[in-house]
Structures are given as structure tokens and as C-alpha cells.
């Protein structure tokens, strides 16, 4: 009996509720979900990701260095364009010499920037000198453009007594406080959320500064990249995310790195304004970065630039045997020309033909040279003289760097904290005592006393 009464009470309550529910069953109501602003649809349809005709690639010059659309010509003055050219070629010369020096065992490791000089210089030129740079490891051209001396590049690679990094890191881990270039670290993509934090602080300080953050298309797979993009958008940070897509992460081609339309297509997913540019076109890189900078600072929002550079897809020239998808942009195969680093021999995963093909076909330096020649701002004489001069500068710096001693081994112990903890000081003293007895077994003669 009690059960029946309870049941009746439940039934009566449900009728009351049912009447109240009728208020919600109108046909033309709008969705009010807090999680998305969208209309209803009554047809089941999955959105198709578009990778066949993906986000188009912005360019200003054709392969012969001719301006395609005059309204996109940045009309840069001669001095500036010559600085572009000299920065890129000096970097290239330094790369060749330091690469060789590693092969000869003079430095332990090196990473070249072959084919990506345009991305570094075009973007660096579009920034203010005080804009903060967070790089990954293949952005030496940014420092070169900011007039970082050859002596200091070499000092870091040799870990000698002039290295501002005090000999602590492997070669190419440059940093320069004066030039607002944050010291490189090896873990990939860790710089991305850091750059966002720095941009937030710049916004709060009303510094009128943008932060630029470079990374490769492989590093963009890391969780830190996702974190950085999302934070930049939600916290409205004045930051430029600059992705260098050279088609390879060591041996891993982009077909194994992602299935979407590259990195640029991810931007809109985060609410970020995005563009894809031809990384071999220094003016395209310049224009995109310049506009992104202007708006990032004015509007306090992030921008994503994906710069496509050289990276031979595994099917170039097309391999009829291969069943892999031909991921080319038009017939514009893109690739990293050099090996990933001196620890890498890319002939293991790319054919020599591919590399030569691209080296001869298209290169940011040769494209810019064509432009300079057509403007009458450069000629063969100047080219020859500059090649000689730049090589000489690099060789001099190189020889000097080789001759200098390494820093004092006491520098092994400092800067762990701002102040040296007492326990660490004891360890430092114990090494000193050890060297007194066993010093002959250590390369002390190469180190500063």
C-alpha cells in the first residue's frame, strides 16, 4: 500500500515536470550551448579535412625573382635588400665552413641552415630589434641579421673562453641578451608556451613589442605546441608563431608527421589568424611577418605563419613504384636540403638526385640574387668580391675561435642557482682537490687557468 502511494506521488510529479518541459520543444529555437556558437543542422555530415587543395602559399616573387603582383611588392630600399642578401650568404658560408669543421672533428656537432636562410632573414627584417625571439635551433639567420658577430657564433660552437654561454651547451645553442634572442635549448617545442608567456608579459608592460617563436613542422606535433597555441589565443597574446616546414623531421617525412593540411590549418582550430607562405621567397616572408607584427601588437592576438621550404618528398622525382601519397603543393615539392645535423646522413632516407635537383632549381639566395640583378643592385663582380670577402671573414673568425682556450673548469659549477649553494661549493672544492692529484689525466692545458 505504501508502495502504491509512493508510486502515485512519483507519477504526479512526473506529470508536473512534463508540462514544464513542453516549454522547450519549439522547432525554431537557437542553440544556447556555452561551448560553441553555431546553428543546428539536421543532416548527418562529417566535415572533410581538405589536404588536396590546402591553404594556398603566399608568394611575392616567382622563381626568377620577378615580382608577380606589383601591389605586394614591399618596395624595400636597396640597402635593406643588400643586407638581406649578405646576411643569407654569410650564413651560408659560415654553415659550409662549420659543417666541414665538424666533419674534421674540430667541433663536436653542427646544424646547417641550408635552404632556410630566407625564412630567418625575411622574418627578422620585419621585426623591431627589440622584439624577443624564441627559436628552436635552425634560426641562426635571425641572429646574423641582427649583426651577431661571427666571433660569437664560433665561440659558442667551440665552447671557448669568449662564449657568452660559458661553454655549457652543444654547438648552435646560441643566445644573446643584447639582441633579444633567447638561448636555444635542445628539447623541441618547449620554447612555444614560453614565448606565449613572454608575449603576455610584454602586453602587460605596454611594451609595444611582439614575441616571435620559431619551430619546425615536426616540433609542432609536441604537446607544448598545442599548449602554446591555445594559451596564446585564450590569453590574447601579441605573438607570431613561425613554423618552418621543411618537410622532414630528421628522417620522418610530413606524411608520417601529420595528416591534416600542415600546420597553418591548425591555427583556425585555435582561433588564430594563419597564413602559409613560400619560405624560399624572402619578400613573402617579410610581408607576412610585417603585417602579422603590426596586427599582433595593435590587436593583442596571435598569428601563425607556416613557411614552406625545401624538403624533397620521398616520391620526387615521382616514383611510380611508391604507393605513398604525393604530398606536394601543386608541383612544388618542398624540402630541407641539408642533413638534419652532423649526426645525420640523409642519403639514408633521401636520394642525392633529389637534393641536387632542389639546390639547382630553387633557393632563397638565388631567387633574391635574380631580383638584385634585375634591379641593377648587384652584379658578377660584386658577387665574386663578396664571396671572397665573406669567406675571408668566416675563416678569420674560425681560426681565432680554434686558437682560444676553453673557459676555466670552475665555470662548471656556477649559475645553477643565482647563488652557489654550500653543498655545491663543497663539490667544486672536491674537484679542485682531485685535479691537484690527478690533473695529468685531464685536458687542463686547453682550459683557461
Amino acid at each position: 500500500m505504501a508502495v502504491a502511494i509512493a508510486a502515485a506521488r512519483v507519477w504526479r510529479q512526473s506529470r508536473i515536470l512534463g508540462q514544464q518541459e513542453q516549454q522547450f520543444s519549439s522547432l525554431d529555437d537557437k542553440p544556447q550551448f556555452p561551448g560553441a556558437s553555431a546553428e543546428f543542422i539536421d543532416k548527418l555530415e562529417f566535415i572533410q579535412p581538405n589536404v588536396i587543395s590546402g591553404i594556398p602559399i603566399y608568394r611575392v616573387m616567382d622563381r626568377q625573382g620577378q615580382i608577380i603582383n606589383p601591389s605586394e611588392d614591399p618596395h624595400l630600399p636597396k640597402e635593406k635588400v643588400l643586407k638581406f642578401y649578405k646576411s643569407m650568404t654569410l650564413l651560408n658560408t659560415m654553415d659550409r665552413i662549420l659543417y666541414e669543421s665538424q666533419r674534421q672533428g674540430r667541433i663536436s656537432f653542427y646544424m646547417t641552415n641550408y635552404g632556410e636562410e630566407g625564412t630567418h632573414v625575411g622574418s627578422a627584417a620585419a621585426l623591431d630589434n627589440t622584439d624577443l625571439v624564441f627559436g628552436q635551433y635552425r634560426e641562426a639567420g635571425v641572429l646574423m641579421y641582427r649583426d651577431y658577430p661571427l666571433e660569437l657564433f664560433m665561440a659558442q660552437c667551440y665552447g671557448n673562453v669568449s662564449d657568452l654561454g660559458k661553454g655549457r651547451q652543444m654547438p648552435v645553442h646560441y643566445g644573446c641578451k643584447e639582441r633579444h634572442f633567447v638561448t636555444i635549448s635542445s628539447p623541441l617545442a618547449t620554447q612555444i608556451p614560453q614565448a606565449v608567456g613572454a608575449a603576455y608579459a610584454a602586453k602587460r608592460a605596454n611594451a609595444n613589442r611582439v614575441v616571435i617563436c620559431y619551430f619546425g613542422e615536426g616540433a609542432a606535433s609536441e604537446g607544448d605546441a598545442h599548449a602554446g597555441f591555445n594559451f596564446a589565443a585564450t590569453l590574447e597574446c601579441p605573438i607570431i608563431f613561425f613554423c618552418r616546414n621543411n618537410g622532414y623531421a630528421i628522417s620522418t617525412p610530413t606524411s608520417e608527421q601529420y595528416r591534416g593540411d600542415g600546420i597553418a590549418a591548425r591555427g583556425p582550430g585555435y582561433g588564430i589568424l594563419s597564413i602559409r607562405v613560400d619560405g624560399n621567397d624572402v619578400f613573402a616572408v617579410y610581408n607576412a611577418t610585417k603585417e602579422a607584427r603590426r596586427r599582433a601588437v595593435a590587436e593583442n592576438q596571435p598569428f601563425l605563419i607556416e613557411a614552406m621550404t625545401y624538403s624533397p618528398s620521398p616520391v620526387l622525382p615521382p616514383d611510380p613504384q611508391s604507393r605513398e601519397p604525393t604530398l606536394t603543393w601543386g608541383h612544388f615539392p618542398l624540402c630541407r636540403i641539408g642533413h638534419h645535423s652532423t649526426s645525420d646522413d640523409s642519403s639514408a632516407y633521401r636520394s642525392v638526385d633529389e637534393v641536387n635537383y632542389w639546390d639547382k632549381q630553387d633557393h632563397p639566395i638565388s631567387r633574391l640574387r635574380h631580383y638584385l640583378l634585375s634591379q641593377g643592385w648587384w652584379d658578377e663582380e660584386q658577387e665574386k668580391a663578396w664571396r671572397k670577402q665573406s669567406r675571408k671573414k668566416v675563416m678569420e673568425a674560425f681560426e681565432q675561435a680554434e686558437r682560444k682556450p676553453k673557459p676555466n673548469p670552475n665555470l662548471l659549477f656556477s649559475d645553477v642557482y643565482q647563488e652557489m649553494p654550500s653543498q655545491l661549493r663543497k663539490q667544486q672544492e672536491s674537484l679542485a682537490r682531485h685535479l691537484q692529484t690527478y690533473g695529468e689525466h685531464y685536458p687542463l692545458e686547453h682550459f683557461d687557468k
Partner: protein
Amino acid sequence: MAAVGSAASWLFRLRAAGAEGHWRRLCGAGLARGFLHPAATGKDAAQRRQVAHFTFQPDPEPREYGQTQKMNLFQSITSALDNSLAKDPTAVIFGEDVAFGGVFRCTVGLRDKYGKDRVFNTPLCEQGIVGFGIGIAVTGATAIAEIQFADYIFPAFDQIVNEAAKYRYRSGDLFNCGSLTIRSPWGCVGHGALYHSQSPEAFFAHCPGIKVVIPRSPFQAKGLLLSCIEDKNPCIFFEPKILYRAAVEQVPVEPYNIPLSQAEVIQEGRDVTLVAWGTQVHVIREVASMAKEKLGVSCEIIDLRTIIPWDVDTVCKSVIKTGRLLISHEAPLTGGFASEISSTIQEECFLNLEAPISRVCGYDTPFPHIFEPFYIPDKWKCYDALRKMINY
């Protein structure tokens, strides 16, 4: 019977659909108790939740820092954060849910007082929170990041260990993130189980370049947190969550600093040195009383306070005097920070030791839920270990 059964299941569905208002009304009608809590009445109610395994012992009111106010632990944290944001215009606080005041109320009122650009929520992403915080600190601004539970700090491990800790060293002191402080609730709470009870200090102890600090009380917390925030090195500040409400004492309203890397001898003694940090300090205080009462043993109690860099000298000095050392922490025994202390002390004080160094710690298991009372290194286990040491 069937009608009742189906009505009951209908009630479950209604609740699941989130019809809050309806649910409350039904509860009020007394239905909920009948259908959904069948065992609520009668003698089965014996499965009550345990009382705490410690009694918080407030320290005497501090006199040297001006006016004090009664505060619990979360209020003392809020006070420290308030002082920081008032003094340092670059300081910002961020993390999950900090804007409304935080899941433990540590940031209540701060957003209203200092603005939404200074106290703000981030997306749910610990690696992002710490990375973002590092970036702020690199520009020289003060970054105070919150990780909602220490159990969730691991996605940020790479940013902490590979980046924050090494920033100054690897750049040759060109760059640093010294103005970064990470705060996080820590330690057992009675019912937290695997993912709301962890004490991960040992993972970070192995990482030169950061400081790890754990307070035992509101007064200690405010002074130590202020020191962390002002310290020129990245710091992790673990807050014993079980003390957020349970620990109440007089805390100065104005800012003050308690030095880092200095252990505190909170009670002098002759026979045994007891070392702990955080909540466990209160456990060993009680053990010291038990030892005095039952064994006539005089204990010297040390609150380590900073895990790294730790105050080796204070612990050595004490062990040289007493000859016996017992270290206790909730974190699992193997690789726990007691191993580091034990190893160093036996190196430095070998000939002074009257007994092997004793470690009373959590077992080498994940932190269990229902078995918590058996898992934790409670006063009985510490007392028993102490007794064995005395009789060695």
C-alpha cells in the same frame, strides 16, 4: 514493486539528465532517502570516515612582524599572494580555476582586487601553465603559477626539469626564470587516493636548479611563500592540503620572509633527531611526546622546510649531538627524500651514529583510497621505529 522499481530508475535518469531543480525538490520530498540510501539507517553506519592522523600544533604568536590575524593555511597563502601583488606590479597569478578563488580558496578576492589581467584562468594544461610561467619570468616579471594538485604536475615535468631548472646555467646567465614560483596542493588528505594525495618532492629533489619548499603551518607558509616568490631561482612550493582548513594560527598581516634552505629545530632534545616536513611534522611532534611519556626519551625535532637545496648542516649538528636519526615522509620509501638525508648523514656523521638511520615512509605502492589509514606513516609506526632505535 515493479512500479516502485521503475520509478526509482526514472529518478536516476532524471538526475543524470542534470535536472538540478527537479532533483532538489524530489530530495526534499523524502524520496531520495528511501530509494537511494538504503543503508543509511541503523547500525551499518559504523563505516564513518576516519579522523585525521595528526593534530595540528600551532606555533606561539609571532611578535616581531607586527599585527597578526587568525588565519588558516589557505588564508595565509592568500595573504602572501595579496602582499606580493601589492608590492610587485609585474606579479601575476594564473592556473586552472584561480580566477573565482581556486578549488582550495587560496586566491579568493585577488582578481577583484588586482584585476583580470593579473589573476586569470588558463586552459587546462599543466605543461602550458609552467611553460607560460617560464616565459613571463624570462622577461623579468613575477610569475606565480598554480598546479591544481601536485599529482598533476607531471605533464609539466619537462618544462620544470629541462627548462626552468636549467635556464640560467645553459645560457651562461644571459637569461633566467628566477621570478617563477609554482604552487601546488600536496600530500594526503584522508580520502584523496592515487591522484589527490601524492607528495612528489623526491622527483624534483634530483634536479639542480630549482628549489622545493614545503611549509608545516600558516605562519611558515606565508613567510616561505614570500621568500620563494622573491627568490631569484625558480621555486616549487607544495602546500599540505589537509592543513588548508585544519591548521589555524596567528599570522602577521604584513609581509615577512622566512629564509629558504634553512631547517628549523622546533624542539631541542638529546636522544633522537626526528626530521620531517609538511603535515608529518605534526605527526612526529606527537611521537616526541609519546617518546617522552612512555620511554623517557628526549627528541630533537627538525622541520626541514626546504627540500632542495637542503640544510645539511643543521641536521648533521643535531645527529652529532643525539646519535640517532629518524626521518619520516608520506611519499613511498624507495627513492624518497629520506634516502638522500640518510645517505648524506651516514657519510658525514658515521662515527656519531648509535643506531642505523630509520626511515618511516609510505609503502612502495600508489597511494590507496580505502587503505589510507594503513598506508600512512602514522605516529604508531614512527613510535615503533623510534623504540627500536633506542633499544638497538
